[in-house]
């Protein structure tokens, strides 16, 4: 199978999560202390790298059919979750992810919190805020990178793609020195949700013993079909919402 979908999906998923992690790191660093913030971020990145280094190779030891069944099922469930949220946000039923709002809330909390030194960490609050933010956002990326990488027998390429996305977002973050509020997060999450769900459908059905017509080429139909279904649901929900709003307006007049 072509490695491009693997590289693109992991890169985009990682970039979106890195933008969210950057917001937390900036809030901790700019309002508290950079040294402890970097320590927290580094500690989280080491934990994430260790998870990839241990779980990645372990997954490749599992035979391909059961691996694809398990990984495919997990990806389908995980992808449905991403897609559901992205559709609800795109249709107006859920608020869009607001990096500036999140940043303002994190800054207010960071200013109000007391610090305190623990061991080699000067500011424990900045350390834990940065550590938790990077670890939690990073776990989603690790999950996607490992499952995608293992199913295609290329965990190394998936890890490289994830690292490249983190680097790009980090460089842009250093240059801009503010939360990356202009990144079209929901559109990117929508795209990642489509890819995760499509590959989840493909691999899990294969793992359960089904054979796709055209083998890997079936993905060329599954991915656009999933996108069309997701766009269709979004349009339907937007229309329903507009009709409900129009009905409510008529009642009040």
């Amino acid at each position, binding site marked *: 199978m072509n490695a491009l979908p693997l590289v693109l999906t992991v890169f985009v998923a990682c970039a979106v999560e890195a933008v969210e992690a950057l917001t937390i790191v900036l809030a901790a660093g700019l309002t508290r202390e950079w040294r402890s913030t970097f320590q927290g971020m580094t500690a989280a990145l080491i934990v994430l790298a260790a998870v990839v280094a241990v779980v990645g190779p372990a997954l490749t030891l599992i035979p391909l059919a059961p691996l694809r*069944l398990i990984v495919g*099922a*997990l990806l*389908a*469930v*995980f992808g*449905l*979750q991403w*897609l*559901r949220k992205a*559709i*609800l946000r795109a*249709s107006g*039923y859920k608020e869009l992810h607001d990096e500036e709002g999140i940043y303002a809330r994190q800054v207010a909390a960071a200013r109000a919190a007391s610090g305190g030194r623990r061991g080699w960490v000067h500011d424990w609050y900045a350390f834990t805020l940065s550590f938790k933010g990077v670890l939690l956002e990073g*776990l*989603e990326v690790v*999950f996607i990178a490992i499952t995608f990488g293992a199913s295609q027998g290329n965990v190394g390429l998936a890890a490289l793609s994830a690292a490249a996305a983190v680097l790009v977002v980090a460089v842009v973050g250093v240059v801009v020195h503010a939360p990356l509020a202009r990144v079209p997060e929901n559109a990117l999450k929508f795209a990642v949700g489509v890819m995760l*769900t499509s590959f*989840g*459908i493909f691999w*899990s*059905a294969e*793992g*359960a*013993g*089904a*054979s*796709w*017509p055209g083998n890997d080429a*079936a993905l060329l139909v*599954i991915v656009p*079909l*999933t996108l069309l*279904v*997701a766009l269709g*649901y979004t349009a339907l*929900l937007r229309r*329903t*919402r507009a009709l409900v709003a129009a009905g409510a307006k008529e009642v009040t007049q």
Partner: protein
Amino acid sequence: MSRWLRSFGAFWYDFIVGDDWRGAAAVALALAVTALLVHVAGVNAWWLMPVCVFAALGWSLRRATTGRS
């Protein structure tokens, strides 16, 4: 220890399954039926997963937008 295990399990449940467990249940059920059709009935049921996943997504969205999730 049991409290730690419970929070650990809750974290992974929330991480993978999220707000609506029905999506996960639909995927598991669709896979079980696909395996049965393929291995017991000899039917190459590749079409079942996409149908069930798209239906589960629609069902989940309907529940979320009608306040029943």
